[in-house]
């Protein structure tokens, strides 16, 4: 009896050691760096099929729209500035676009609404595993980028947002995201100001959010205040290209 107990304890202890070793291994930056090699394979593999013909993500009939589309991440930015914008219904909000562009610009919400628009009913896949279907209306990002005339060294489009998920006071936790020109010029990549036929609600990113339909939800920045065109993003945030990327998630979120 006592022998089986000690044997069991020994097995449990050995198992515990193995598992503790796994955690140490998983937490090691070197191991994470090796593992992240798969991200390059995912990007290269998917781009092989996605770049050549720029296929569209599936669009669904209106009957498929989720009745209760989950709002994830920040659902109401708590800065005074954002609260004031909500109270004034974003009438003094302007989308700025600058960086590696010949003509930097800024547009009001009404100006964006008069531009060419695209409406799409698409499936939103969260990195957590769930999916919801919603209808989005907005200006194709390609239209905005064409207006500003990109410089030859422009490689990434960075979205600067109003939400601070970790509640930092110094702005270091402000949400941001980045995509490259392949996704930026995709016809379904839009800056959405409406969801399911109504102005974009606050939990879903009012007044404007990004839709990049061929990637996961965390790429689709909400509460976008400014668009910045850059050659590299290593000096922004912690240098990984986005709020979640800085916290260990893949920059390429096509899987």
């Amino acid at each position: 009896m006592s022998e089986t107990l000690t044997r069991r304890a020994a097995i449990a202890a050995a198992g515990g050691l193995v598992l503790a070793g796994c955690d140490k291994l998983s937490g090691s930056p070197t191991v994470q760096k090796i593992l992240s090699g798969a991200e390059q394979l995912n990007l290269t593999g998917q781009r092989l099929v996605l770049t050549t013909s720029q296929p569209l993500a599936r669009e669904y009939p209106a009957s498929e729209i989720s009745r209760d589309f989950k709002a994830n991440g920040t659902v109401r930015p708590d800065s005074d500035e954002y609260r004031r914008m909500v109270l004034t219904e974003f009438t003094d909000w302007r989308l700025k676009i600058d960086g590696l562009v010949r003509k930097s610009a800024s547009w009001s919400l009404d100006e964006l609404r008069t531009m060419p628009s695209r409406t799409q009913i698409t499936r939103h896949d969260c990195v957590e595993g769930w999916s919801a279907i919603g209808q989005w209306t907005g200006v194709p990002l390609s239209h905005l980028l064409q207006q500003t005339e990109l410089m030859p060294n422009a490689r990434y489009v960075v979205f600067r947002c109003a939400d601070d998920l970790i509640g930092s006071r110094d702005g270091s936790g402000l949400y941001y995201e980045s995509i490259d020109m392949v996704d930026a010029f995709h016809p379904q990549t839009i800056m959405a100001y409406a969801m399911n036929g109504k102005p974009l609600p606050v939990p879903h990113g009012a007044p404007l959010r990004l839709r990049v339909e061929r990637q996961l939800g965390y790429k689709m920045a909400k509460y976008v205040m400014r668009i910045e065109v850059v050659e590299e993003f290593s000096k922004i945030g912690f240098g990984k290209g986005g709020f979640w990327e800085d916290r260990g998630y893949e920059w390429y979120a096509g899987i």
Partner: protein
Amino acid sequence: MTAEIAEQKLSVARRTRSGRELIYRHSLFVRIAHWVNAGCFAILLMSGLQIFNAHPMLHWGVKGDEADPSLFSIYAEDQLEGAPIGWVQIGAAKVNTTGYLGLFRDRDGFLSGRAFPWWVTLPGYQSLAEGRRWHFFFAWLLVINGFAYLAYGFAARHFQRDLAPSKGDVRSFGRSVLDHLRLRHPRGEAAKRYNPLQKLAYLTVVFVLFPLMVITGLSMSPGVDTAAPWLPDIFGGRQSARTIHFITATLLILFVLVHVVEVLLGGFFNEMRSIITGWFAVRPEKSGRQI
């Protein structure tokens, strides 16, 4: 020609010290592929449970989030008084799994409300980001290893020779099932081949379950779905594909359990020697005993 090679193979047959015949059962290629696959499966399973913990419910169809009905879920339910309860819900039924699933003591001793406990996830603490990195890296390794194994299996006629069921296998299938139930293992000439049930199990794992794991996994990728919208359609949508991914993983766990039990029953030392060195000792026929 083939007969000559077979002849040579026979001539290299050795004997154990106790006089049992040793046959070269597993080629080096198959042995390496087996262990790479086993390692990948363990890591994919544990990192997969970590990923599942980020949304511990399964749905059917294209869409599904917390507001939608679920076929299966694991969750902790707060109580007005006392500790929360861990539940596993399957359809309309639910089972109290406090301590194991949904609610358990974390490594530091504190109660934790995650679905799968720390000792079956990779990493043991909650980290969807790290779980995903492990999962995708070893998924690539599993797929590369799997394709190499398939190419070898057909080219070297391993599948045709060792796994393809013969007419005799079909006839003796019922007896094979009975033998398994009685935990009776073949001896002599019969022990040199895979038995009918064993062939069926291996064929299912190699040609159905592992391919299904990979295809349902790919069906969850928004990038892949854009390039091949028909892929998630096969399963009835992205969330169905996720559910089938989980069910298939469960079937693979069942296979591994039976596989390991058979190794123990069939003679642990001999079976391990054969999958490490290739050499397998054949148990002689029992003389004077009629079945």
